[in-house]
């Protein structure tokens, strides 16, 4: 049996004395599109900040490609090294506004590789081509649309050929067509680059179209109340809350 790609056991996450979630455990396999679902405010973004090493869980362990990430003696240096194999696409794109798109994508390459400027230029062009932004190298983030910002953010997340990409609501604020195109793009990139994807989203069409596995975080009980492939969960919802969520409360 292969080691799970990302394994979370018994996470408890708090802000001060407020428990945001407890006893959260799940496993992400290689090349999964793993969806984190849940109502607004249940702690999905918070969970993502923990998974990516920005916030420490109060309790629990996380293993990433078989190596400790949180707990089991993992240090900040371990986390930094592991995060180099991960890309993150933030809810707003989070592009650095004082740099052009090309500079945004090039920064991680300049930081973490020994490539020459010409090689970096080629890779930047490729990444922008892949997300459909070929030719926009010299644009500033303020000069492109919201959907383009998301795609540029994706190009930056893909800069170092990550093994895993985390997405926080990639389709928030996009029209249905753009949102579907982004889904297709994510799928294509996953298939071509063999990336594993962990994604927070509310978009039901996305969830069913691309999710291979998922968890549902419940705001009331503050823990995971369902786990499995979204389509399976839709067929046999284990509880009313999830059924309500997946069917948008329709009968």
């Amino acid at each position, binding site marked *: 049996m292969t080691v799970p790609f990302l394994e979370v056991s018994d996470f408890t996450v708090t802000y001060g004395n407020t428990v945001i979630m407890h006893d959260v455990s799940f496993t992400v396999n290689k090349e999964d599109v793993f969806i984190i679902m849940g109502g607004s405010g249940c702690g999905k973004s918070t969970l993502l900040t923990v998974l990516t090493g920005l916030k420490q869980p109060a309790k629990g362990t996380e293993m990433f490609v078989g190596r400790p990430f949180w707990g089991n003696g993992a240090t900040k240096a371990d986390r930094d090294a592991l995060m180099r194999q991960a890309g993150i696409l933030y809810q707003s794109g989070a592009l650095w506004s004082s740099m052009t798109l090309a500079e945004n994508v090039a920064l991680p390459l300049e930081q973490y*590789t020994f490539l020459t400027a010409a090689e970096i230029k080629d890779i930047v062009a490729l990444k922008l081509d892949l997300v459909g932004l070929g030719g926009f190298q010299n644009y500033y*983030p303020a000069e492109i649309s919201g959907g383009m910002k998301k795609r540029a953010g994706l190009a930056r997340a893909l800069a170092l050929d990550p093994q895993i990409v985390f997405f926080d609501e990639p389709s928030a604020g996009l029209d249905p067509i753009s949102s579907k195109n982004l889904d297709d793009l994510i799928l294509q990139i996953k298939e071509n680059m063999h990336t594993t994807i962990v994604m927070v989203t509310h978009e039901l069409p996305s969830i069913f179209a691309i999710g291979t596995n998922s968890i549902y975080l419940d705001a009331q009980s503050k823990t995971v109340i369902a786990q499995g492939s979204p389509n399976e969960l839709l067929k046999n919802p284990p509880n009313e809350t999830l059924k309500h969520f997946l069917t948008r409360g329709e009968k």
Partner: protein
Amino acid sequence: MPADIVLKKNQDQSLSLFLSGEWLSKNNIDNRAAVFDAVEKKDFDSIILDGSQITQWDSQLTAFLVHVMEICKQNNIRCVLNNFPTGIDSLLALAFAVPKHTEAAKTIQHKAFLTFLGNVVLQFLEKTKSVYAFARQTYASLVRFFLGRAVMRRADLFYEFQEAGPGAFPIVSLICFLVGLILAFVGSIQLKLFGAQIYVSSLVAIAVTRVMGAIMAGVIMAGRTGASYAATLGSMQVNEEVDALKTMGISPFDFLVTPRMLALSLMMPLLVVYADLMGILGGAFVGIFMLGLSPEDYFRMTMKALLMKNIIIGIIHGAIYGVIIALCGCFQGINCGRNASAVGSATTSAVVYSIVWMTIATAVLTFIFSVCGV
């Protein structure tokens, strides 16, 4: 084994490239420059790439291929890929799926000197226009305020008064006390030569009340409050909060600018009086503890030197500085661009312009007062 390419010119006007090794982003490509030099010459009608010796690959390989294929496409050169790892086709297809954006493809241009000069003048005119518009709208908003028609929250107004007044006490106390101290100290060195230490008190009292207190308070408030106005309004601009106000039919001038204008221009005179007091205390500290003057003597001399005229001149300076700082801070904030670095430059400009205009105002006021003989 790093990434390597072997070039071979064939008989039939074609160029063969044999790629081998680990094409990973952590390796550099050997003789990459030589290959592109050869390709750029375009003295062949097809390129045949062979990838059978590639052991590992990632975006490094794809990026290289895209570059070569693009050159071929532009020059109508045939490009053939043989024995490449599976999966690369679909990546290449994805990379070429969306045609490149070329219309007005942006390049950084170097402008001629005259163009540059022209742009500077145009920008200056543009700026003047927006300053005028800002001043007009602020005036209109103040009029609305006094007619009781401005939409603003009373809590905001109180908060701004609190921030611009009592909130500044600690820093004003510290700086003005020190300035009084330094004035007394430097003055005493000269006055001691004539045995006239006692006049240190008059020196401090006159200097601080007439102009130093106001200038110190002004500089402090420009750095503290003016900068904060620019940063706050600037980030509200970035977050589209100002747009949200406008679309609700609320004037950002009524809601954001007027409270700040009122707060700063009404609190500044009071701060100046406070700064005067602190400066005199700083002078007294030196006079009493270092020059050995008796407290009664010191304060008696101070009271003699304190003229209502000077105090009022100081307060007038303060009021004008308050208006200048609030105007500069709010103007830079409201006209801020929509990104993080714009907020930074708005803040810097707010402080710089405040200080520049304060200096100009001081010069003008000094001229007027001396012409009037006060």
